[in-house]
């Protein structure tokens, strides 16, 4: 088909027009903070905040409730605050993300992980800790937020200076 007859280009134009209108409609929807966690963009703002509660709010747009279904594994005492092995696993269902916060660090949010369907809700990583602090893991499961907290004593700080 190399030749176009009358009605087709017109119809295509109208369809294109309709798509544009639909996209504009989506674009003007208010972006709730919760969307920031759900979409794919790097959460720059949340990483810049000093305070843990502010960072959780910036990342998820709501607060968490403590849960005993989260197992947060961190040392009682970290001799080197530059490398603190921390892991978390949970038996909660429909986990979509897990984030780590170190309350006393210059910026509270340390790392945030996304869990697509089929990925086991557990992660191990190594974080820097400036000084003795509470470490909090936030688990987003079925649209709700749950937390577990543990204090880690740091003998040599890991944020330099």
């Amino acid at each position, binding site marked *: 088909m190399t030749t176009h007859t009358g009605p087709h280009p017109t119809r295509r134009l109208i369809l294109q027009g309709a798509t544009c209108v639909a996209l504009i409609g989506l674009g003007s929807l208010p972006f709730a903070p919760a969307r920031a966690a759900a979409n794919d963009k790097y959460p720059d703002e949340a*990483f810049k905040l000093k305070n843990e509660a502010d960072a959780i709010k910036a990342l998820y747009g709501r607060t968490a409730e403590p849960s005993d279904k989260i197992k947060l594994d961190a040392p009682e005492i970290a001799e080197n605050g530059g*490398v603190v092995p921390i892991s978390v696993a949970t038996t909660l269902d429909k986990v979509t993300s897990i984030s780590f916060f170190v309350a006393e660090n*210059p910026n509270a949010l340390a*790392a945030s992980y996304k869990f*697509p369907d089929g990925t086991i809700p557990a992660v191990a*990583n190594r974080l820097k*800790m400036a000084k003795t602090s509470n470490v909090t893991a936030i688990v987003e499961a079925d649209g709700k937020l749950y937390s577990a907290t543990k204090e880690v004593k740091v003998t040599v700080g890991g944020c*330099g*200076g």
Partner: protein
Amino acid sequence: MASSIRVRATSNGDLTEVQTLIQHPMDTGLVKDAKGELIPAHYIQELRFAWNGKDVFVANWGTAVSKDPYVKFSFKGAQKGDELKISWTDNKGASDETTAKIA
């Protein structure tokens, strides 16, 4: 140049365990060098693992992740011999990627 990414992905039945070690300074921007000048922040912001063209794990990192970061996770569905694509980008726009075969 050798890849900055080292990966071990091992399949055990339906489950694949992935361990990754990346060479990266992960500078916080708070540390001074020998001359007393601040070393600018330089850190990986995003690390992605894709299997069959689909993300299976995405990490968003700040400066509090340790130097030469390590991360471990597991996912379901892959077979031995499948390929896992790993890629990262940092705050200066640098990036690297590699492909690992699931053993």
